């Protein structure tokens, strides 16, 4: 071996990621799962992929709720070097499918009967123009309330079933010197609360017309004004340290007994579990008040078109790994969400997840499965952005009336069209 060849070899060993596309039977994926539980959960799928004889090449891009990963993907696509697969949130996958860069998974869906295994409401995020373009692995529920059980017991409070009860409970706790609601002034956390108010007070049909349908009359309706009124009342339930508070810090305050409740997706559950707290014993989980609904977020993986047959084979194996019921079970046990498939046994899941399964089944039957607004499922990002701006500004600006907010919302949506 010449010194030059040795140098080459050494470089190749030192930098294995430089030429992943050349390795046979490998699959490169971009995703934004970087926390410990997320990485462990992903490993369940990649282990399954390995058992099928393909190596996973990890291109994690964390940060900004996936915005950094999206940016990385755009650069790669613009350079003509797309990854084999990519994690999609919300409209991301639909947009890429419209660009015609995704592989059709119709044959796989048909051969394995996957369509029947998924809740019909999530199909719009994995299928466009009769073409399946992604495989969903999990489902998060956004509209949960997480509560400190000791505080609830001490002040004799039961899980509120309407927003009026919620606010009354807040007043009672406030009078007793307890911060009722742990929140942040980060806009997305406020929007999580607002969308639960919208769907809880207005009902699923209103949510579909006003938010998903962006109907100007529904956006300007009294129901919308009332939702902002409720949000204003809720803003009286928080403490003054909300500036830039991370959601996990807000969860930690509930766990530590510094605040009574938090309205947050089921990723908050992990924070309680990590502290050794048990659902129903030390902390409570119940759906947000008002009309029952299930506000969902899914993580799905799409496959990018590629001329390399090895990559195509790996993509098929990847899709099969994701849709494997056992993989979904184990993945979601670690991640804290519930499987996207509706036929996975629920036995090993905790009480909150079990309630999630039951509520989902009921919501599928009653038509109250609603795509979450905050994580970009209800509307395309340019419209979701308007909700972010208006709701965020309303919450922190004491002088802004509900009517002002509704007017800005209508004008903003019109401008973004």
């Amino acid at each position: 071996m010449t010194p030059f060849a040795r140098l080459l070899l050494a470089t190749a060993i030192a930098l294995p990621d430089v030429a992943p596309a050349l390795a046979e039977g490998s699959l490169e994926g971009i995703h934004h799962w970087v926390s410990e539980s997320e990485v462990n959960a992903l490993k369940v799928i990649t282990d399954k992929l390995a058992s099928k004889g393909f190596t996973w090449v990890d291109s994690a891009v964390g940060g900004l709720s996936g915005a950094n990963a999206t940016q990385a993907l755009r650069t790669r696509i613009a350079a003509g070097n797309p990854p084999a697969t990519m994690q999609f949130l919300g409209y991301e996958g639909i947009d890429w499918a419209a660009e015609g860069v995704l592989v059709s998974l119709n044959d796989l869906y048909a051969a394995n009967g996957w369509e029947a295994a998924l809740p019909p409401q999530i199909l719009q995020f994995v299928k466009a123009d009769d073409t399946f373009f992604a495989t969903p692995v999990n489902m998060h529920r956004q509209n949960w309330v997480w509560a400190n059980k000791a505080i609830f017991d001490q002040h004799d409070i039961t899980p509120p079933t309407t927003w009026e009860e919620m606010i009354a409970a807040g007043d009672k706790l406030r009078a007793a010197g307890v911060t009722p609601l742990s929140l942040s002034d980060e806009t997305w956390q406020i929007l999580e609360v607002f969308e639960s108010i919208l769907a809880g007070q207005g009902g699923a049909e209103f949510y579909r017309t006003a938010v998903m349908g962006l109907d100007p009359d529904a956006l300007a309706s009294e129901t919308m004004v009332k939702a902002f009124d409720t949000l204003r009342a809720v803003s009286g339930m928080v403490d003054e340290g909300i500036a830039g508070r991370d959601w996990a810090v807000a969860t930690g305050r509930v766990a530590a007994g510094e605040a009574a409740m938090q309205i947050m997706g089921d990723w908050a559950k992990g924070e309680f579990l990590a502290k050794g707290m048990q659902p129903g014993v030390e902390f409570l989980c119940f759906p947000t008040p008002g009309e029952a609904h299930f506000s969902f977020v899914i993580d799905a993986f799409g496959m990018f078109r590629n001329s390399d047959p090895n990559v195509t084979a790996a993509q098929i194996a990847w899709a099969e790994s994701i849709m494997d019921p056992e993989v979904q079970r184990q993945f979601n046990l670690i991640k804290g969400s519930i499987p996207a498939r509706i036929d996975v046994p629920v036995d090993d899941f905790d009480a909150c997840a079990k309630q999630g399964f039951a509520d989902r089944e009921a919501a599928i039957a009653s038509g109250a499965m609603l795509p979450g607004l905050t994580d970009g499922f209800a509307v395309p990002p340019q419209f979701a952005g308007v909700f972010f701006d208006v709701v965020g500004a309303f919450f922190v600006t004491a002088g802004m009336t509900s009517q002002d907010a509704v007017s800005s919302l209508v004008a903003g949506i019109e401008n973004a069209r």
Partner: protein
Amino acid sequence: MRRAPSFRDRLARRLPQLVLSPSLVVVFIGVYLFIAWTGWVSVSSSRMLPRYDFVGLEQYGRLWATPRWQTAVTNLFIFTALFLAVTIALGLLIAILLDQRIRAEGFLRTIYLYPMALSFIVTGTAWKWVMNPTLGVQKVMNDLGWDSFVFDWITRPEFAIYCIVIAAVWQSTGFAMAIFLAGLRGIDNSIIKAAQIEGAGLPRIYWSIIVPMLRPALLSVVVLLSYISIKSFDLVLALTNAGPGSATEMPSTFMFSATFRRNQMGVGAASAIMMLMAVAAIFVPYLYSELREDRHGR
């Protein structure tokens, strides 16, 4: 008869051009070509990926009809004006004080320069905690017994932009001081002595003689601070994340979120072009006049 230029002579003549040409090419592609490309995208209907059609000034109309962009523009003016004025005033004051042949000057200078060694992300995060009413200054004051003390600007949309000014001033004052100090050291002592003999007092000497002589230093400070303020992206992101609401939105954060988070690449490009035009409108005349005077003064 003249000797034909040897290879060496020709090389010597061409060498500067040869050495400079790669960087010229890189600057041309990396700066001017992409400015042109951004301009093109800003008149297209681009959403998620660039689309090369033509829709006229539609994206600019949409941009200016977005309240968040109007907030961003107002904030940029407030921030730039206050940031420049306060940083220059404080930096100059500290430089003049340090220039009084005091003891432990090197030590003090290092202290003032330290914030500059931090990235804006660190500054932003630290000040976020300092200014948080339940963690920082307000809590300390309240714990010390001053219960009525309130410093909650960071939670109030109408004041949050001043929090960013405070953090940015803290970070950059040492830098302005260093440049002014270097300028002060370059001033000939005999001028000061002459003024003293003429009977001028110290404030008068500084105001009428020394500060005007610092004009080249001032130019550097203004240019460098201005570009810090226009690209003040990381500081805003770390300190307030453009909040509360979108009260501390800046053109740079607006451009990022429009382009990469909201699939409005056309609007993002339009905002980038507006930023470029604002910078050009202020700086081209300023640089032109300063540099021309410089040449004449020689």
